[in-house]
């Protein structure tokens, strides 16, 4: 039995279906991300779990208790808002203590718990500061401490890192994951940032137009995307359009002048498919030695990597190679491209 179960959750705003028949089971202690472009229904889903939006149909069961129609203030969930939503007129200490105060915890115990929470997010020196005196990252940590101090069964994070600058965001990602592991709180995070979702989640739920399109571990999601949308949304991918030429133990896909042998079940001969090929799985070899040759039409230095755009018979392909690993061909140079068969995924 899973800890938090969303079953056939549906939300209409007027005639507009925002979340369509969403089902998800979350285990205790798990970190699950809802990933998707804006307007895909991920935030609405979170709001239904939090109790700020009423589900049109479907149910939410937390630890055996049906909370679908429970009021927001009776659910006891910890929530970190995108805007942090700190109480601007209260000190950091009072912000964090508020939830405990509402639970009528005695003052001495309350102090102890708040101090522990502030220590966890390294904010002890700021306990008497007011939110407006803190930096974005510090506010974020106050919000996290405030949500965790009540020891909620589930922690909900609504785009928690989107207001931070890139460097701080990366730092906070790891800190967030570290704290979540230590405390062991079941966590659902909403994000539109695929790197963020992949780097800190146990499982990622990809949503598109109100529907779940794939639920998987980050590695599998990246390696085995189930649709063109996911392969393009999660990381970068070259999509090679083709047709199924033959099926058998291995499917044969024809694309342009080439034939590829790939794993594929349930394909119909003649069906239009796409092959997804990650740019970092392609290697440079000498011209004529690889699967096909191409010209470097442009190359970009990204610091740790080089990104090359190649003109080939299959159209434009992006190739990424690690800086320092191999010689990077110059612009205009003709080179061979090689990759192993298992680097390609068939997408219907």
């Amino acid at each position, binding site marked *: 039995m899973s800890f938090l179960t969303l079953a056939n959750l549906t939300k209409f705003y007027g005639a507009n279906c925002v979340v369509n028949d969403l089902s998800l089971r979350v285990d205790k202690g798990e970190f699950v991300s809802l990933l998707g472009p804006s307007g895909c229904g991920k935030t609405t889903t979170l709001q239904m779990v939090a109790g700020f939006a009423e589900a049109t149909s479907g149910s939410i069961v937390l630890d055996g208790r049906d909370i679908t129609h429970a009021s*927001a*203030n009776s659910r006891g*969930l910890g929530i970190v808002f995108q*805007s942090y939503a700190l*109480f601007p*007129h209260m000190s950091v200490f009072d912000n964090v203590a508020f939830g405990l105060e509402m639970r009528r915890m005695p003052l001495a115990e309350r102090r102890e718990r708040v101090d522990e929470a502030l220590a966890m997010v390294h904010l002890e020196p700021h306990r008497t500061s007011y939110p407006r005196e803190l930096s974005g990252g510090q506010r974020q940590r106050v919000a996290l401490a*405030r*949500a965790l101090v009540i020891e909620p069964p589930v922690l909900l994070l609504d785009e928690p890192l989107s207001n931070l600058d890139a460097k701080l965001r990366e730092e906070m990602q790891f800190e967030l994951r570290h704290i979540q592991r230590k405390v062991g709180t079941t966590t659902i995070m909403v994000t539109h940032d695929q790197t963020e979702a992949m780097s800190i989640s146990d499982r990622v739920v990809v949503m598109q137009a109100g529907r779940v399109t794939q639920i998987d571990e980050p590695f599998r999601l990246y390696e085995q995307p189930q649709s063109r949308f996911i392969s393009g949304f999660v990381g970068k991918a070259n999509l090679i359009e083709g047709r199924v030429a033959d099926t058998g133990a291995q499917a044969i896909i024809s694309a342009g002048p080439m034939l590829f042998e790939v794993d594929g079940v349930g394909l119909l001969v003649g069906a239009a498919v796409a092959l997804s090929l990650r740019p970092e799985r392609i290697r440079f070899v000498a011209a004529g030695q690889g699967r096909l040759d191409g010209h470097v039409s442009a190359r970009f230095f990204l610091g740790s990597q080089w990104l090359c755009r190649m003109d080939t018979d299959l159209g434009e392909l992006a190739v990424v190679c690690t800086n320092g690993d191999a010689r990077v061909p110059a612009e205009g140079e003709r080179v061979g491209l090689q990759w192993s068969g298992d680097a390609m995924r068939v997408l219907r």
Partner: protein
Amino acid sequence: MPWALSAPALLLFGSLLLVPLALTTVLSFHVFSHATGVQDDFTLAHYAAVLGDEYYHGIFWRTFWVSALTTLICIAIGAPEAYVLSRMRDPWRAICLLVVLAPLLVSVVVRAFGWSMLLGPQGPVNQALQSLGLGPVRILYTEAAVIIALVHVMLPFMVIPVWTSLHKLDPAVENAALSLSAAPFTVLRRIVLPQVMPGILSGSLIVFGLSASAFAIPGLLGGRRLKMVATVVYDEYLHELNWPLGAAVALLLLLANLVVMLSYNHFVERNYKKSMG
């Protein structure tokens, strides 16, 4: 350049406020006699007369408590009203806002006569009270009538600043409090109210200041016997023709108003400054 831009405002301020104020101040020190009018000699007698006479003390005290009570009632009605308004959706919000602002669109004299008809001995209010077996009650020409009418006129001056500060509120903050198990009323008291205090403060200052110097409403609804400071000034100028005494009373009202408003501002700021920045 900034000086040039503010020149029209400075000119207006100087010629229409500072000059008359200075003239009034000078006037209040002139000797007055009923036989010969305003003399060229100077005296402090008018101030001494006002400050030493219980008659004037009573009028100043009444003006103060009527204004203070008006302010309190405006807070009690206006703050929740602004909250409800801010939660409404259009078109209801626009309609309700118009209703709130309506008193400002009607002339103060017309409005005051309307109130005197409503509150008079034979008015609908008294008839209703009588049918309930509670009347007749004397409302017109008492402080109650003045306060009722003042609250009606002053309400927009409370609603608008509170509404403005409600606009600055992040709606997620209320949700955050709810998620921490606060009851809806607790959210209002502990989260919303402290954040709209600046609005309530500026609303109170406007309402108190305007009420303390109100003339038409106390004059028309308080009647001839129930005097407030502004009506006394009017009487001194136009009935007694003792302009210097009237000027002295007017300046003392200005002074008292300033003292009350500054100390209230100081008191509230001390309590909220730290948190509201």
